[in-house]
């Protein structure tokens, strides 16, 4: 409870920091909306051209795109400290966090927020709603809860993937771009359902970075479709893979703090 209060107060203060530069904030938010809007536009062009990709129609793709966009930019917005960890190490902020009687991950989350990403999230919501209406989804309570579970699972998964980069930062100070294959690569690959891809990609994003399990399986259930030959009830279980990924990376993160070397004086 106490931690949530601290988080909310930190967010309030960080928002005030952002508003110290209102014009920069407005322009940045606008550019984010245009960027993500452009991506949505590209997806719509693709749908228009091909109509069908595998078993999926354009309206389905729109739904998948919406779920990925919302989940990914929720992390980029509220977990900005994790997704952009290298400045935390370089500026010495990590040293300061180690000097305070709170969990490091809590403090990293309280360290940064990126409200500009709210624009991207809005685009995601628009895509999700449009897709949902076009598919004529009948929303039931289980389906609504599953959507939330799936987004939460995806949120944890993406956070965990960003934590891989954070851990490498602690050792080498600079971030290693290779990890972006899973994070940003995962976002652009898995905004389409996984079964349209060839084997290796399927394995990579089902087993190693389980985007398919956290987002695609539940999405297919909500759309009354089937993916990866899984039974319907599985959709309620597979998003937990996000939680598992997070717990694994959380342990690794805590352990690597012990080997942290700090930066100059």
């Amino acid at each position: 409870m106490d931690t949530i209060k601290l988080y909310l107060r930190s967010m309030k203060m960080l928002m005030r920091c952002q508003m110290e530069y209102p014009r920069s904030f407005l322009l940045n938010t606008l550019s984010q909306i245009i960027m993500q809007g452009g991506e949505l536009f590209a997806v719509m062009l693709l749908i228009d051209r091909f109509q069908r990709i595998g078993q999926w129609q354009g309206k389905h793709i729109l739904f998948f795109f919406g779920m990925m966009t919302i989940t990914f930019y929720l992390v980029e917005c509220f977990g900005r400290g994790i997704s952009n960890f290298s400045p935390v190490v370089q500026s010495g902020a990590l040293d300061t966090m180690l000097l305070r009687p709170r969990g490091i991950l809590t403090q990293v989350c309280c360290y940064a927020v990126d409200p500009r990403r709210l624009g991207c999230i809005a685009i995601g919501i628009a895509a999700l709603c449009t897709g949902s209406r076009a598919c004529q989804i009948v929303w039931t309570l289980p389906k609504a809860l599953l959507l939330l579970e799936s987004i939460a699972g995806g949120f944890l998964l993406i956070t965990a993937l960003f934590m891989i980069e954070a851990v490498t930062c602690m050792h080498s100070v600079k971030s290693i771009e290779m990890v972006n294959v899973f994070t940003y690569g995962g976002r652009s690959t898995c905004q389409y359902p996984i079964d349209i891809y060839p084997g290796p990609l399927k394995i990579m994003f089902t087993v190693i970075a389980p985007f398919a399990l956290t987002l695609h399986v539940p999405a297919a259930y909500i759309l009354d479709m089937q993916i990866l030959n899984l039974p319907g009830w599985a959709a309620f279980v597979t998003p937990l893979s996000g939680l598992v990924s997070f717990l694994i990376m959380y342990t690794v993160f805590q352990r690597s703090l012990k080997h942290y070397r700090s930066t100059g004086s």
Partner: protein
Amino acid sequence: MPYIQVTSLQKSFTLRKKRPHSFRRDKETVHALSDVSFSIDKGELVGYIGPNGAGKSTTVKILSGILTPDGGSATVNGRIPWLERKEHVRHIGVVFGQRTQLWWDVAPMDSYKLLRDIYRVPEEQWKKRLGELSEALALEDFIRTPLRQLSLGQRMRAELCGSLLHSPELLFLDEPTIGLDAVSKLKLREFLKEENARNKTTILLTTHDMDDIQELCSRVCVLGHGKLLFDGHLRDLLSRYDTLQFLNIRYASPALLPALPEGCAATHRDGAWQIAYDPQKIQTPTLIQLLQSAGTLSELSAEKQSIDHMIARMYEEMHL
């Protein structure tokens, strides 16, 4: 048991140096601390000095729980800093002179409110403490101005307040007076003395400013090459190196300097002479008489060696 107990502490870092014209890198191990032991009692104010790269900051970082040492042990109030981090840091405050720990874009007041939540300081206690500190450090004028708009001296005072809000028993100060003007320095020293005396706060101060040490610390520890080279009273340290004095003279009419006894060195600048001598070997009046024998003096002044020179000599002799 002493408040801080450090026993044969060790820490080394591996550096990778790039070879010129090659992609290969050489590994090199730097022993930041090779064997450091000391103990500090509650309420002491200790100066921790040494040339750049001696391992001062590393010691502070280990004792504050940021770094894990490779060997040896350290306890603060019976706690091992890097193993019981959260419980340990609740009772310490740290100020890094070259790095801010407050939030850059908001006023100190907002930072203090967030610190209150982070340290879980009760509202009443926080208000009382903030009142005391803002009066002692004269923060009223700028407590509601964004930190980035403050001068260096104001910022340092704001930092100090932030690190003391949770009433720590132990305060680490890493070069707190760096870049401050004379007035700010004096005020800061006054405040630290007061804090140490009134609240029995143990203070460990690393600095390059020898006046800080002379004004504040009854005890100094000298660190060099990762080893403790001296631990004791500043006076005792200086008496070892405090052997030289200087006479500055100018002759009324151009004159040749007389032959000086052994152990004296003369330097000439802009028509004036500076004679360095050892008062143990030649007494000052004798030397003055000798100088007067060569001609009438128009100026005469004596000075002691500056403390910085002494420290420089000490570092030289210790091969630092």
